[in-house]
């Protein structure tokens, strides 16, 4: 399918449009709230919540016999929330580290969920069909009323995030200081975590319990690379989450039997990879360029030092020497030629008609400053 045809379908194909809107909404909510999870070092909590939600889905169906999204989501939310409280309780009372508590809750709840799901599937009614799509997600099963539900609840969660912005910000940055101001940090903690639970359970039908945490962590981690402002990070996290959701879900909806969760994860991973590499400032490429620049400068300075040392053995420090001599002195002989050219372009060294190199007056001064006064002032270049 060409891109044009795809865009056409995205706008006019009923199923694809529904899927795109739904996954955009849940991606935006998860991406925005995920920023707080990532900044509070709770990335794994999202995974535990998603897995812990599975028994809630099964039980909600068993108890009501309904497959309506709001009912299943409510069951998922209750189970996910119970799982979160269990983690907090284990950490507080049992002297176990948080990652252990996360591991216990994740596997116990997920195991219970699988048992319940298996039991549901063995029952002779037909209504249970499709419950297993909650494992890996199937965005194509989203109906218009599901999308309305996701968008409505998601908007409420984001609105609450907006209203309690400064409280959540200080909670994430310095909870002790927040407590010293008299803020109820423990209740705020439960509140913010509950919003995260909401963001996660909204995505379970489309993305699945196994991989939903990717939509919480990946867009936030990517967004962090591009900005140093919490507001922009949350906005960008939401936007990237929406992009990952729409792209992943659309790809899976176009083919037959492609589960949405893994597709979304692949797209989100791509976004993270690009961000880790290419972001200005924090990206690896920027880092690499910075390192290279520094190395080039240090190399040039060391050739300058060698020229100065050689020159000092003569009556004039600007006495010329062969590049071969400098290469013999350098730890990185292959780079000497380039360093000399840099020094020449700065006006610190020059070559004569015999191809010999010498310091200029200016270069001698700089060498003096750099290497005689010990660790001196920073050189503005």
């Amino acid at each position, binding site marked *: 399918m060409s891109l044009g045809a795809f865009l056409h379908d995205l706008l006019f194909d009923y199923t694809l449009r529904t899927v795109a809107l739904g996954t955009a909404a849940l991606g935006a909510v998860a991406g925005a709230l995920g920023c707080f999870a990532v900044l509070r070092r709770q990335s794994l909590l999202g995974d535990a919540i998603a897995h812990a939600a599975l028994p809630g889905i099964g039980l909600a169906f068993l108890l009501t016999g309904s497959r309506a999204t709001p009912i299943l989501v409510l069951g998922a939310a209750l189970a996910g929330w119970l799982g979160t409280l269990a983690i907090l309780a284990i950490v507080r009372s049992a002297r176990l580290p948080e990652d252990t508590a996360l591991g216990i809750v994740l596997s116990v709840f997920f195991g219970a969920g699988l048992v319940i799901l298996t039991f549901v599937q063995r029952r002779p009614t037909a209504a249970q069909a499709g419950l297993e799509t909650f494992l890996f997600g199937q965005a194509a099963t989203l109906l218009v009323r599901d999308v309305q539900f996701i968008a409505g609840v998601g908007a409420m969660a984001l609105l609450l995030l907006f209203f309690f912005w400064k409280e959540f*910000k200080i909670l994430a*940055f310095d909870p*002790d*200081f*927040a*407590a010293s*101001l*008299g803020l109820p940090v423990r209740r705020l903690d439960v509140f913010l975590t509950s919003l995260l639970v909401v963001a996660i359970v909204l995505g379970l039908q489309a993305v699945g319990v196994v991989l939903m945490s990717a939509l919480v962590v990946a867009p936030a981690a990517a967004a962090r690379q591009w900005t*140093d402002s*919490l507001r922009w990070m949350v906005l960008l996290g939401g936007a990237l989450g929406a992009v990952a959701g729409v792209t992943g879900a659309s790809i899976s909806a176009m083919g037959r039997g492609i589960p949405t969760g893994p597709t979304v994860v692949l797209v989100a991973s791509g976004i993270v990879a690009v961000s880790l590499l290419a972001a200005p400032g924090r990206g690896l490429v920027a880092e690499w360029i910075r390192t290279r620049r520094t190395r080039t400068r240090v190399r040039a300075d060391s050739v300058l030092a060698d020229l100065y040392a050689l020159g000092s053995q003569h009556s004039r420090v600007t006495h010329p020497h062969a590049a071969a001599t400098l290469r013999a002195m350098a730890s990185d002989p292959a780079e000497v030629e380039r360093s000399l050219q840099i020094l020449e372009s700065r006006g610190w060294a020059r070559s004569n008609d015999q191809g010999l190199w010498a310091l200029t007056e200016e270069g001698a001064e700089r060498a003096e400053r750099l290497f005689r006064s010990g660790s001196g002032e920073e050189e503005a270049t």
Partner: protein
Amino acid sequence: MTPAGPAIEVNDLTVAYRQQPVLWDVDLEIRAGALTAIVGPNGAGKTTLIRSVLGLIKPAAGRVRILGLPVAEARRQVAYVPQRGSVDWDFPTSVLDVVMMGTYGQLGWLRRPGRDEARRAEEALEKVGMVAYASRQIRQLSGGQQQRVFLARALVQDARVHLMDEPFQGVDARTEGAIVDVLRELRNRGDTVVVVHHALQTVPEYFDDVVLLNVRKIASGPVARVFTEANLREAYGGRLPFLQGVTGGAALEPGREAPTTDILPDPGGDVSSPPAGSGGGGGSWTRP
């Protein structure tokens, strides 16, 4: 104006982590309008004491009153400077934003910091010499600059009692001087300043009062009376760094020779040597 009673009153305070007492039956009065240092070896409970006074830790027993009020009612009067290392300095926010957090307590729910709060935050940054850094990312700050930002955040709180956990930790001499100036200014306008402090040699110069702590309270009161060798030896269990010249000559008991031979200066200023009695091999600073 100095209130009549003590600024901070601690009665029978006991704090324990998993049955291990961190503070044991501490009775303490901190004078209003004074600069008070809390000193003691690592693990003495200095940070715990400050956090208990702030109500961040629930004590096993005991009572704290600030300016004659229970902590919860005195919050607006109390500013807090936590340890610099207690937060993630890679958090995506600016210096001005962090300082404005000091106004959140007065703002209340649903209200956002606005122009007024930004102006007050800038004034506080001015006082600590950091106004040029207002829009900087906090990641780019040095240790001393971080410490000054935290101090500015406390100043914005506009409190009468200031509790600071190691504000001199990891700062250079110039920053230390700047911070001391700010603390003195607060004291001179009648505020109470309580500082967890590590460098014993600067105690007599910087502080009016001192609390010597080692799980129990060893002594508290004016530096000239309390900061004696005997008290320090009790607090540090004989493992005393920099004893020479720490206490003023006046504070030494008359006629007693300063027994410096068995106490070597600890180059790092670190008192985390093995506890007395643990028989740590070659602990030359422990008494025989």
